């Protein structure tokens, strides 16, 4: 039966896009989690709601306006946070609420909630077309290459910002690079699980992998495995059971996390 499902082109596109997004969220999310920036993804996603509303209002493809609004608001809020010594959680709250409020106003001006808005809020991976799939794959490859090039300075400034700065790394530029990458990742991933659930994909597989992993490389690989498995199993289950794919994907990653916590508390997991 599974093989029959895999012959459908929309399922193939969903799985390919989903796996690409899962890989992206794993690697970018790992740095966010370790920097205690777990909710930053959520804040970017909510600010993208404003961007989507702008797109729908002016008749431009909403994902493009979401990229512009999310990226610029994430960079501006980071600049404000640094200049006025605002705490990370407060800056997240500002970013999150400003995106939602702008979005709500623009949506009310444009005539209220439509099916389009709901698909961005809750994701619609089974509806991605070939063009979206190609864009998702290209963005994933580009971001993974950027992360690979700047892997050492990103990791060092995540581990110990002061030491990294003293070793000659321009920590400020690296922080802006990571914020920009996170912005692109979040908006790209909206199509998979939607604005409301995106932070779970950035956080849960990484938290689970950290419970297992001893070395950084192994932890990242494990997170990628958990993330991609959740996405593939989630898409297939949701189709078979005729339920929402975004919720199923996130629920599977939560189940893996809960099982890990149980095994860990029983002493059955050795970090490797």
């Amino acid at each position, binding site marked *: 039966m599974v093989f029959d499902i895999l012959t459908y082109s929309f399922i193939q596109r969903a799985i390919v896009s989903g796996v690409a997004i899962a890989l992206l969220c794993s690697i970018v999310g790992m740095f966010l989690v370790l920097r205690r920036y777990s909710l930053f993804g959520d804040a970017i996603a909510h600010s993208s709601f404003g961007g989507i509303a702008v797109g729908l209002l002016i008749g431009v493809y909403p994902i493009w306006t979401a990229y512009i609004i999310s990226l610029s608001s994430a960079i501006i809020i980071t600049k404000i946070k640094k200049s006025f010594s605002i705490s990370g959680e407060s800056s997240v709250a500002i970013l999150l609420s400003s995106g939602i409020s702008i979005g709500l106003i623009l949506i009310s001006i444009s005539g209220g909630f439509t099916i389009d808005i709901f698909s961005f809020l809750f994701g619609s991976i089974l509806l991605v077309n070939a063009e979206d799939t190609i864009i998702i794959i290209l963005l994933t490859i580009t971001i993974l290459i950027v992360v690979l090039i700047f892997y050492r300075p990103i990791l060092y400034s995540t581990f110990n910002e002061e030491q990294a700065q*003293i070793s000659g790394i321009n920590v400020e530029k690296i922080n802006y690079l990571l914020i920009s990458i996170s912005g692109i990742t979040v908006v790209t991933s909206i199509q998979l699980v939607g604005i409301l659930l995106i932070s779970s994909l950035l956080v849960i597989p990484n938290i689970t992998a950290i419970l297992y992993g001893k070395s950084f490389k192994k932890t990242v690989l494990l997170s990628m495995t958990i993330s991609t498995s959740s996405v593939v199993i989630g898409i297939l289950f949701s189709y078979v059971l005729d339920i929402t794919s975004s919720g199923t994907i996130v629920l599977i990653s939560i189940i893996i996390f809960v099982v890990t916590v149980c095994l860990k508390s029983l002493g059955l997991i050795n970090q490797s």
Partner: protein
Amino acid sequence: MKIVEIKKLNVKYGKSVVLKNINFDVEENDFLGIIGPNGAGKTTLFSCMLGMIKQYEGTIKFFGNNIQKSKKYLKNIGYVQQKPSFDKNFPITVKEVIEMGLNCSEDKINDALNQVLIHELANKRIGELSTGQQQRVFIAKALVGNPKILILDEPVTGIDTHSTELFYSMLNKMHLSKITIILSSHDLNAVNMLANKVACLNRTLFFHGVSKDFFNNDTLLKKYSESSMQKHIQNHKNGL
């Protein structure tokens, strides 16, 4: 050859003067011990030297070049923080910490680990180690880049006596292998034993010179003790 030259260094935080008219040099192969009570400005001095504090008056030169003109000098410095801040749950092994930010061979990493006697801990998660072991990891990290100068800011804070002794013995070996070292410490005995030069700091520098000249001079030692005690009382009053 002068590795470090500091001239007329003044640092203020708002209206409060943290460092006043600091002048000293560090020659190649020197082991300079910087002593002073809490709040004397030792960490501020290091922060200026490492380019973390940019707002100051005066000149700091490393290898003959003003540090405000280029950051290249940092490549030749190994720095060990007082208490390196990192998440204890960070999934990273000792080996990964040492190679982080660098492009170095496996042999070099192993050499650095052997030098600080923790080769067997290479594949352990850093959060699992004791404070003393973690501090040795950071020394190995500082050494793996082949620094010309090693700067250590009260590196034995919170470390047990045995690890401290081991640590000082390692520093002595490094100095003998021609590495220039600057160590800030409260431990006068250790500075007396290890350093060939001493700088006494308490916001201002009231002695800088050969170690023996300081430790054999009762008047200077008394002046240092009184100054430290006054600072201690002042810190206590300020709730520090």
